[in-house]
């Protein structure tokens, strides 16, 4: 198995891990967002609670979620490690004195993927503490009523603001990450790249936007 280790620790192998785990997390985002749209299905939250119950107990979902936790961990740890070694290779971020004047061709998102990732991770930990931890371990305010927990959380102004900021970071991260994953897989071709980039743009805007409707909906609903 020596060649596998060699590959995974080579520069291109490390990139491939980032790419594949990133794309897997993209599929999770899409499923999570579409599933959560059940929040809007009815006013008493019956559909959403049923959906949450299904997700929590389906053996297939439970198995995949173990992979999900691992891939989130791998993507984050590997990303930070790559950032640190890249920094070492380049000799710091502001290595050119004259660069204050220079216009930069590369997008701000692409240059700050690690920091955006850390923001997303911090947001994710908060998000999991609010719902996942309560539903699984410490207990919900009302037994079996995740919908009530969600509506309770999103009545607080700071929670809504933090969620919108987290989703903004996610959008910026996806804006570079989605198409970048395809480039890393070697899928850069005149016929397809424009399509990949267009899908990436739509994905990076629509998925976070879909999520953003949820805190906004509950916040406004409470105000009315």
């Amino acid at each position, binding site marked *: 198995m020596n*060649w596998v280790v*060699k*590959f995974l620790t*080579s*520069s*291109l*192998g*490390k*990139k*491939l891990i980032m790419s594949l785990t990133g794309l897997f997390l993209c599929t999770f985002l899409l499923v999570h967002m579409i599933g959560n749209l059940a929040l809007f299905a009815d006013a008493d939250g019956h559909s959403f609670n049923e959906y949450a119950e299904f997700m929590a107990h389906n053996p297939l979902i439970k198995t995949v979620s173990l992979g999900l936790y691992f891939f989130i961990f791998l993507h984050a740890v590997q990303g930070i490690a*790559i950032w640190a*070694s*890249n*920094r*070492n*290779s*380049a*000799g710091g*971020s502001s*290595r*050119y*004195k*004259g*660069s*204050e*004047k*220079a216009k*930069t*061709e*590369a*997008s701000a998102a*692409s*240059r700050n*993927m690690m920091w955006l990732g850390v923001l997303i991770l911090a947001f994710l930990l908060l998000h999991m503490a609010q719902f996942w931890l309560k539903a699984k371990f410490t207990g919900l305010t009302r037994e079996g009523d995740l919908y009530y927990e969600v509506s309770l959380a999103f009545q607080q102004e700071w929670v809504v603001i933090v969620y919108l900021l987290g989703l903004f970071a996610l959008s910026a991260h996806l804006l*570079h990450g989605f*198409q*970048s994953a395809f*480039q*890393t*897989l*070697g*899928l*850069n*071709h005149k016929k397809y790249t424009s399509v990949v980039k267009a899908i990436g743009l739509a994905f990076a805007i629509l998925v976070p936007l879909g999520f953003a409707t949820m805190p906004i909906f509950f916040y406004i609903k409470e105000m009315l």
Partner: protein
Amino acid sequence: MAHDEIRLTLNVWRQKSAGQAGKFESYQVTANTHMSFLEMLDVLNEQLNSQKKDPVAFEHDCREGICGACSLVINGRPHGPMQGTTTCQLHMRHFDDGDTIWIEPYRAKAFPVVKDLVVDRSAFDRIIQSGGYVSVNTGGTPDGNAIPIEQEVAAKGFNAAACIGCGACVAACPNASAMLFTSAKVTHLATMPQGHVEAQQRVLNMVSQMDGEGFGLCSNIGACEAECPKEISIENIAQMNREYIAAVFGSNRQAAK
């Protein structure tokens, strides 16, 4: 003062040797707008010589944009502000009277400073030595057109072969990654039938050597292709990724070291 002369303030990186700490020195130079950037530095060095001061060390050779010897980061950009040109092709008419210009060496761990603006780019030579060649039997001169190559294939190979190995990609990359350079060489040779034979071993060896030199990893930012004087595309990096994945999973070959 003639209308085609400009007075400039140059902030130049001065460093005696790799081991010693460097710092910026400020110089006043009057340059003709028809001069190239390197000729302007020649004027500065004549000035310094006449003052019995140590001239600024910088690399140059052909001075027509094909050898890859000149380098420099000018106002934060490798080869200066113009698109698709090397420092020797940069003319002083792109600067204004009274401008302040920052002149720095390429900065990367794999390109240590030798003196002033000169960096050691021998890491690139070692990447080439690890596989950036085709093996040819010695003997009589081969017939020029013995191997038919489609025009489109030849053009693609040539576009990648246009890389002059100057290292601007490494200097521009926030990660100091050498993947644009390495991928240009990999693509150039893998595209042509003469290089196809050794393609798998080549990509394994060159990537392994590149990793060993301490360059960073590519994060598909695209700063390299924006600064490349030969406008090499990052499509080449995608091709290198494909070639590498295919060589690792589709063959029994291993990198030579």
